[in-house]
C-alpha cells in the first residue's frame, strides 16, 4: 500500500493579520467566522462558557463542548491606538486594540477602522462583528452599537 499523505486541518491559519497557530481543536471557529458568526464554547457537563472558545473544560475536565454565538453588546473597558506595529502588521497601521466587557465574558480584539478616534469613549456600548482583512484573513472588530 502506498503511503497516503494525511490531510492536515489547518484552518486556524486564516485567523488575524498574521496567525501564529494553524492546528487547533477549535478550528470550526473559522467556519463560523466565514458565516459571519463569532462563537464561544460552553461545557456540556458543567455549563461553563468560554470566550475565546476552548476544546477542554478546566473546571470538570470534560471535552464535550457546544458552540454558542456571542451576541448583544459589550462595554468598552480600555483600548490603545498603535503608531508602531510588530513585524507583519505594519500595513494595518494605525489600528486600535481593545477589550469589550459582555458581563459573562470579555472579548479582546480591534476597534473597527471606520470608528473615528474622537468618538471612542471608555464605557461606550459596542458590538463585535466578523471582518475580512485586506490580505484575505479573518478577524473580528468592534463597532459602535
Amino acid at each position, binding site marked *: 500500500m502506498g503511503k497516503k499523505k494525511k490531510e492536515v486541518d489547518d484552518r486556524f491559519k486564516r485567523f*488575524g493579520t498574521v496567525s501564529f497557530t494553524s492546528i487547533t481543536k477549535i478550528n470550526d471557529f473559522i467556519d463560523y467566522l466565514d458565516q459571519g458568526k463569532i462563537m464561544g464554547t460552553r461545557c456540556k457537563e458543567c455549563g461553563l462558557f468560554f470566550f*475565546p472558545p476552548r476544546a477542554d473544560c478546566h473546571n470538570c475536565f470534560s471535552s464535550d463542548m457546544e458552540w454558542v454565538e456571542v451576541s448583544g453588546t459589550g462595554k468598552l473597558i*480600555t483600548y*490603545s491606538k498603535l503608531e508602531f506595529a510588530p513585524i507583519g502588521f505594519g500595513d*494595518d497601521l494605525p489600528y486600535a486594540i481593545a477589550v469589550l466587557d459582555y458581563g459573562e465574558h470579555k*472579548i479582546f480584539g480591534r476597534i473597527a477602522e471606520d470608528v473615528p478616534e474622537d468618538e471612542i469613549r471608555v464605557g461606550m456600548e459596542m458590538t463585535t462583528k466578523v471582518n475580512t482583512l485586506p490580505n484575505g484573513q479573518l478577524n473580528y472588530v468592534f463597532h459602535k452599537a
Partner: protein
Amino acid sequence: MGKVGIIGVGQSSFVRGYPGSIRELAFEGFKDAMQDAGIPTKDIDASIICSAPEYDKQRSPAGVFAEYLGLVPQPTCYLESLCSSSSMGLRFAYSLVKSGLHDVVAVIGFQKMSEISSAESQERMGRGADIQWESPFGTMMPAYYAMYARGHMGQYGTTLEDLALIRVKAATYGQINEKAVYRRPVTFDMFSDPESPMSNPVANPLRVGDCCANADGSSCVIVANEEKTRAFSKKPVWILGLGAASTTVNLAGRDLFSGLTVAQAAGEEAYKMAGITAKDIDVAEVHDCFTIAEMMAYENLGFAKPGEGKELIRAKETYKEGSIPVNVDGGLLSKGHPIGATGGSQIRTIVLQLRGEAGEMQVKDPEIGLVHNIGGVGLYGNVSILGR
C-alpha cells in the same frame, strides 16, 4: 532550617549592541558577582540560567554557560518567566538552599536583545502574550500597558503629566548609574515638545518617554545557606520574604485594568512571609517597564492607596530623599531592560543599598528593601523582600 542569604551580586553594564556572544555577556555579570562574593567557583553547587526565550540561536543556554563559567559538573538548568525570570530564579534558588539540597546556588540572568531588530523584538515580546487569540490582532507590549494606563487614568484621574514625572525621576538616577544604558537627562518639558522624541506617540496614551529602553545585559545573584552566608559575607543580606503569582494570559480573562493582580498577590505573600507591612520598606526596586507600571506598583504594593500613586510622585516621595525611594538606580526606564537580567539587577541594587554600598545612589541607612519584578503583561509577578 536556617535563613537564606545573598552573598554576591553583580551585573554587566546595560548597553545597546553588546560586542560579544551571550556566553561572554553572562561572564560579565557572573564575574562581578563572584568578585563581590569572594569565593572560588567550585563553591557554587548549582546554577540557574534565566532569560526570556527566542532571542538567541543557542537553545538550552544553561549547558553552554556552565561550561564557559567553569560551573561543570554541577547541575544547571534554564528557567524562564519572561521579564521576571531572574526573580523567579531567586525563588527557586531559595528553595534549593532552604531544602538543604544545595549550599550555594548562582542565579544568572541575561538577555542579548540586539541580535534582532526593534520591530522583531516587539513581535517576540508580543508573543509572550496569547499567540492564538491576541497576537493575530498585532499586539505589542507598549500597547498592552497603554491599555492599563487608560484604565488607570480613567478610574483615578491620573494624568500623562504624572507619568512624565516618573520618567524624569528615572532619568535623574540613570545619569548617575554607571551601568545604565540611558544616561541622559529627561525633562518634564520634553513630553510637551513635539521636537523631542520623548513626546512621540507609541501606543496611545503612552509616548516614547514612557517606555523602557531595550538593552543587552547580564546579572548574577549568589544565594547561600545561613552557615555559608555568615562565613563568606561581612555584611549579610537575608531573603526575608518571597511572593509569586500568575493570572490569565488573555486580557479577556481579567477584571482589573488599573492595577496588576499578580503584584498585589505576590506582595501580600512576601509581606506575610517577612512578617512586615509596606510601611517597613525603606527602599524599593519596581518593574517600571513603562511609567504606568511604576505608578501601579506604588499602589499594588501598598506604598499608596489605589488611585493615590500620583500623589507620591507629585510630592517626590519616591525620590532618594523621600519617604519611600523607588528605582533610585534609574529603573528599567533609564538603566535599561535586558529582560532576563532585570530581576537580578534589581536584586543587586537592593543588596548594595542594604550594605550601604550604593555610592551616589545610596538611600539613608535602609534596613529592609523590596524587589517587584513582573513578567509579560502582568502575567507573572514576583516580589522579594530582603533585609540586613
